[in-house]
């Protein structure tokens, strides 16, 4: 009887965890089609791509500057992008860098040009660590 209860409890917790994971995604997020970098900015490579030691700094910067809107796990809050989506992860490093630098006033995304350039690349490096989900934006 107790075994049955435990199994049922585990099943309920698993379902709840699955539901909370699914609903944690920011389904309201829609990409702004007009928010695109020029071609030369989009093709810029990340100068820190071979510096895995810089990821920890990127994570710290992400928590400081991005987590308030994009969520601690990059899930996206309010209108902010869910960084785990393929639609985000498929963007080039240069595109993400350009978006961090310029912001998007129409969506309330501020410019982070006040950060040193390498720190912005560190954030891009960390964004790549956020596991992509098999779901694209609407």
């Amino acid at each position, binding site marked *: 009887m107790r075994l049955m209860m435990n199994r049922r409890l585990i099943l309920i917790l698993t379902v709840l965890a699955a539901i909370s994971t699914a609903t944690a995604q920011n389904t309201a997020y829609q990409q702004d089609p007009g928010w695109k970098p020029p071609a030369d900015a989009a093709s810029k490579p990340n100068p820190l791509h071979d510096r895995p030691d810089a*990821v920890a700094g990127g994570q710290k910067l992400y928590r400081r500057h991005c987590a308030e809107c994009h969520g601690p796990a990059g899930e996206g809050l309010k209108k902010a992008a869910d960084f785990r989506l393929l639609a985000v992860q498929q963007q080039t490093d240069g595109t993400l860098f350009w978006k961090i*630098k310029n912001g998007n006033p129409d969506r*309330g995304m*501020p410019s982070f*040009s006040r950060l*040193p*350039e390498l720190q912005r690349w560190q954030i891009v490096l960390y964004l790549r660590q956020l596991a992509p989900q098999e779901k694209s934006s609407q």
Partner: protein
Amino acid sequence: MRFYFVLFLLVCGLASSAPAQERPYFVTYDHHLEEPGNLEIATASTVRVPRDGQPAYIAPWIEIEYGVMTRWTTELYLEGISTRNDSTIWTGWRLENRFRPLRREHWINPILYFEYESINEASGIQKEVVGNAEISNESNADLRREHAHEIEAKLILSSTVRDWNISENFIVEKNLSEDEGFEFGYAFGVYRPLASLASGRNCRFCRENFSAGAEVYGGLGSTNGFGFKDTAHYFAPVLAWQVSENSTLRFSPAIGLTDVSARALMRFGYSYEIRGFGDRVARLFGASR
């Protein structure tokens, strides 16, 4: 008293960890605005080290800055002065707004700045230096009777070059209470963080938490007499230290460059940023996240 206690608790309750990332300048503005919804509360002081015949003073002020939108920041100043061998008085308030007309980052980024000042002639914070230098030996009691309603506009131009910020401010001010013409001033500044890369650990004394540079500012006369004659000018090294995730200390010893400038202006300040303040207040009134 109870109101202020409740207000204090409210602010503390709404406070969350947030990066201060303050510019080290005291006078010069760059093109970085407050992030929307963030509230910054700062306190700072200007200490005048006088030349012969000038009174020494400390002029403290409180600054409340709020990011209204991504391209609009508003700021309220409350200021006072305490003069040696004289008195301590309230000198007035200022309301400023900064607008960013362009949507993207450019080689030069303009910001439009408008300010209204309701101050008296005892004001000494020297948030900007304009017009001709006035050397007054009147007491605070006399100076506070002369009230000034002033409007001020600035064109702020700012660039980022290899982690260096380079800013130029051009100032025009009009006293609506007296016929002084339009007064002019300038401020130029450069600074950079001491480290370009962020370390992975949470550290207080890492180089990345410090930024340093210098600014120069001064008056350019008025429409009654444009130029450098009888104008005050200062050169000021600036230093900012991000003490914690949400607070910054700033220090700047400004050296007077002309005979009518003060010998020095010692400036120091502390700022505390509350991230997502607007959202938190909205949620208090039932708005969803």
